């Protein structure tokens, strides 16, 4: 756990005093990622660097796991906090192995132990130990260097990590890959992480909580979905962007909004029956046909059903679009738009249909949070606000 208590930094500059961080108080629970987000110069980096005393606080305190860090030796403090700087900062005169093991060495681990640790770290960041450990940073790509930077910070297994725009220096595609890898690692490692970013999408993706800064002040500190649903003031609202409702699509899983109710037909149903069911369920265009195992095999078009006699098995077309419970709403919305559908069937791991998700459910979900908030009832968890009964596992 990291707790900041009225942390303040005033820089004396030739142009007068600059308050880079103004009485910042916040708490990051153990095992969570907190994103410090805000426009350039708002004090994110300064706040972060006061935690490992790269910047000395003017006033205020930092507690790590309940302990006031001002009583700790600076070097000891830093060796127990993983630090990833924005510029990566690998030591060019050291091999990858020497870079990764620098903190364990400073902590006096024995050689066998830290060398084994280097190999373990390489496997963790999905880089081949034998291929890379003896190389130098200049022989690595930017993305690889960034991974090594993270490995160096994690090598001594510190409970707390500070990361200043750690993935800022890489291209968007690689960045997404490293973000995913990092989230996967974090699921096992459970570090308490302060993470500076100026990218809202990154913040929403990586953060358990997001702290919005403005001119040295902490303006709002919320979970991502709450932040997007209920920005505290105009500044936060404009910072999040006009499309913030759409950004929420990333945060909600099909699982949260899917309903078990779905109209289906079987191969030996008649087309008349299919037409009836299309109308009964309000599907307009089509209905899904499933086999004995409830796996989708095709769709029956309303137009065909209306003009033709016979059985479904002789008149189905193409395999329908489906989503799984772990897909996010962004994918669902994209599929709906691309296929001109107002609903999409959901399947389980075996490809069996277990329900559907509708456009109405999505718009209702996004809208309900705003309505709830404007009535002053904000703060409920996303799933609780869903209009239809969510499918549990």
């Amino acid at each position, binding site marked *: 756990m990291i707790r900041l208590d009225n942390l303040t930094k005033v820089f004396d500059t030739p142009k007068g005093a600059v308050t880079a961080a103004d009485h910042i108080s916040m708490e990051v629970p153990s095992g969570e990622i907190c994103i410090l987000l805000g426009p350039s110069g708002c004090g994110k980096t300064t706040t972060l660097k006061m935690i*490992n005393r*790269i910047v000395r606080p003017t006033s205020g305190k930092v507690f790590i796991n309940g302990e006031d860090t001002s009583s700790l030796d600076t*070097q*000891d*403090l*830093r*060796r127990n906090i993983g*630090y990833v*700087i*924005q*510029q*990566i*900062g*690998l*030591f*060019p*005169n*050291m*091999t990858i192995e020497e870079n990764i093991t*620098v*903190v364990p060495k*400073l902590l006096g681990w024995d050689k066998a132990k830290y060398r084994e640790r280097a190999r373990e770290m390489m496997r963790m960041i999905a880089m081949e130990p034998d291929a890379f450990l003896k190389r*130098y*940073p*200049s*022989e690595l790509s930017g993305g690889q260097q960034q991974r090594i930077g993270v490995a*160096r910070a994690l090598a001594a297994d510190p409970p707390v990590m500070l990361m200043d725009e750690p993935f800022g220096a890489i291209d968007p595609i690689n960045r997404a890959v490293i973000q995913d890898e990092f989230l996967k690692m974090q699921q096992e490692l459970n570090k308490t992480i302060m993470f500076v970013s100026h990218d809202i999408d990154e913040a929403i993706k990586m953060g358990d909580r997001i702290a919005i800064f403005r001119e040295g002040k902490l303006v709002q500190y919320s979970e991502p979905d709450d932040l997007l649903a209920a920005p505290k003031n105009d500044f936060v609202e404009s910072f999040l962007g006009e499309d913030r409702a759409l950004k929420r699509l990333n945060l909600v899983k099909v699982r949260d909004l899917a309903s078990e109710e779905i109209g289906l037909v079987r191969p030996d149903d008649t087309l008349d029956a299919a037409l009836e069911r299309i109308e009964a369920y309000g599907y307009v265009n089509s209905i899904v046909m499933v086999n004995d195992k409830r796996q989708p095999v095709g769709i029956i078009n309303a137009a065909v059903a209306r003009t033709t006699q016979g059985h479904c098995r002789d008149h189905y077309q193409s395999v329908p679009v489906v989503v799984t419970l772990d897909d996010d709403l962004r994918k669902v919305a994209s599929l709906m738009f691309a296929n001109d559908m107002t609903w999409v069937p959901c399947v389980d791991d075996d490809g069996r249909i277990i329900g559907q998700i509708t456009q109405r459910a999505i718009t209702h979900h996004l809208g309900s949070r705003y309505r709830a908030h404007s009535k002053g009832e904000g703060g409920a968890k996303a799933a609780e606000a869903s209009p239809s009964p969510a499918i549990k596992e």
Partner: protein
Amino acid sequence: MELLQYFLDNLELLGTLTLEHISLVGVAVGIATLTGVPIGIAITKNERAAKTVLYIASIIVTIPSIALFGIMIPILSIIGQGIGYMPAVIAVLLYSQLPIIRNTYTAINNVDPALREAARGVGMSQNQRLRMVEIPLAVPVIMAGVRTAVVLNIGVMAIAAYIGAGGLGTLISRGISQSDPRQLILGAVAVSVLAIIVDYALLALQKRLTPKGMEREAAAT
């Protein structure tokens, strides 16, 4: 032809004088490195001290070598070393300070601030930062300073023959006083060739001392 014959006849003398020359410059620049590098590192901590030290070092370089020898004769006479080995070494030692201190200072100061911060961030003490990061990164530039000092002072040392320090300058001074162009030319050519060879040798050494991971960057400078 005559010159070549002269060269071959005096090969042994030439060898002795060259070794003498190298040892004079070597000892002087060696000591200068041992003093200049720590001074260069120390003044990175204080900008005003840095300015003062670099200013003094530049003034010293502007003193003509003959004048410097002249000043040292009465001073060193007190301990009976007014001429010969001692003043020659001291003069070269003084001249070497500027390139060595300046390069060390610049190199340490120019270490990427991000690396400095990374070094602090992983919990290195000030000494550990110097030893593990800053000095290794500065080595190529420091070595370039040493090279400059050596090449510069191979020339200076030739003049030290006038105060009886020996070395290749002996040929030049004798050539002048005896109006013997062969000696004069031989001495002058030997000094130049020595400077070039030593420069290359030190360049090779500089490359060896450059941390492996930095070879690419170092090649660019």
